[in-house]
């Protein structure tokens, strides 16, 4: 009789447990209506990231942008932005979007400069103007911070073309450095590599760890390229992988480093 009672209790618990789990996981699960951006599906996360970058081009508010990026809980936001810029460019998405991503990646990739005032210190209070805001209290607004962009109207000129023989490079590259008149790297400069059967666009600043004005393009063996900066004065032609010789006398494909600079404005 005692065994029978114990069996009934155990059976009841098992059926009840199954029913309880079914109810709490399937029929009426915990509803997450207060999700954070970090829990978004990957494609929405990418859209969110692109939106942060596009918004930054308008506000120039790096402090707020960092806070927005923090909500996505990314390990390395600059790299994520850079990767997304490249994938969106490759997918034929609007150029402005890729540029915004590249520029923000470049800005985040910059090392902090000691002694430079923070974004918060640039905030200036403004009085309330909107009449339809009964509860709006005077708050701070932002002073847009200029992005590291090229000097308008000044074309880039090739100032140096250097052959690179580096065995650490796995592939032949056209490496580009775009500098402004003061010698600082400029992100977001559009470059066009043209060859017999095609062309490809790329931008400086997509690899912020290598400098704001840096970009590279992989050359295929036996193909000759012409490189044109969108804001350049003239194209650089006849670019093909130069032949290099390593310590053991073996030949390998080298690379080119092209440095462009804007002239000083009068």
């Amino acid at each position, binding site marked *: 009789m005692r065994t029978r009672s114990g069996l009934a209790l155990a059976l009841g618990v098992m059926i009840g447990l199954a029913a309880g789990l079914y109810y709490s996981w399937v029929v009426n699960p*915990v509803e997450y209506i*207060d999700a*954070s951006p970090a829990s978004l*599906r990957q494609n929405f996360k990418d859209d969110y990231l692109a*939106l942060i970058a596009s918004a930054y*081009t*308008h506000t120039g508010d790096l402090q707020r942008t960092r806070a927005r990026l923090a909500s996505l809980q990314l390990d390395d936001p600059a790299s994520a932005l850079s990767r997304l810029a490249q994938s969106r460019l490759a997918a034929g998405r609007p150029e402005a979007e890729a540029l915004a991503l590249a520029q923000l990646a470049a800005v985040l990739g910059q090392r902090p400069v000691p002694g430079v005032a923070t974004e918060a210190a640039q905030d200036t209070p403004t009085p309330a103007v909107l009449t339809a*805001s009964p509860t709006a*209290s005077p708050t701070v607004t932002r002073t847009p911070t200029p992005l590291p962009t090229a000097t308008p109207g000044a074309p880039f000129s090739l100032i140096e073309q250097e052959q690179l023989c580096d065995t650490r490079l796995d592939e032949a590259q056209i490496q580009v450095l775009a500098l402004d008149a003061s010698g600082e790297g400029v992100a977001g400069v559009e470059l066009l590599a043209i060859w017999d059967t095609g062309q490809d666009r790329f931008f400086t600043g997509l690899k912020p760890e290598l400098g704001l004005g840096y970009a590279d393009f992989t050359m295929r063996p036996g193909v000759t390229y012409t490189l044109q900066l969108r804001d350049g004065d003239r194209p650089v032609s006849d670019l093909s992988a130069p032949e290099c010789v390593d310590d053991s006398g073996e030949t390998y494909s080298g690379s080119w480093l092209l440095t462009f600079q804007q002239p000083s404005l009068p």
Partner: protein
Amino acid sequence: MRFSSRLFVGLFIGLLLGVLYGWLIRPVEYVDTAPDSLRADYYSEYVLMVSEAYSADVDLELARVRLAALGPRPPVNIVISAIDYGLEHGYSQLDLETLNRLVVDLRAMPPSAEIDTP
């Protein structure tokens, strides 16, 4: 105690444990949510970002597509909700004006075909 009574007590205990486990200890995890499930502050921040991006690119169609990710409500209503939230939570004047600009332009936009949610 009779068999049926024991079974009933067991059922009750099991049900209680099951619900406790399913709701509190190991609830269903939503890791692939959509923007329409964002918490109110993130939701409004999303709308504000759409407005800021619109101020930069002046692409109203793109703004509508971005707002469509927030659910089936009309885009104008979504932005108005964000303005209301901003008024309640002390958004800056500039932010409110940015949102307001998008509402004005959305209202001026002729009705177009329905936009698919991404």
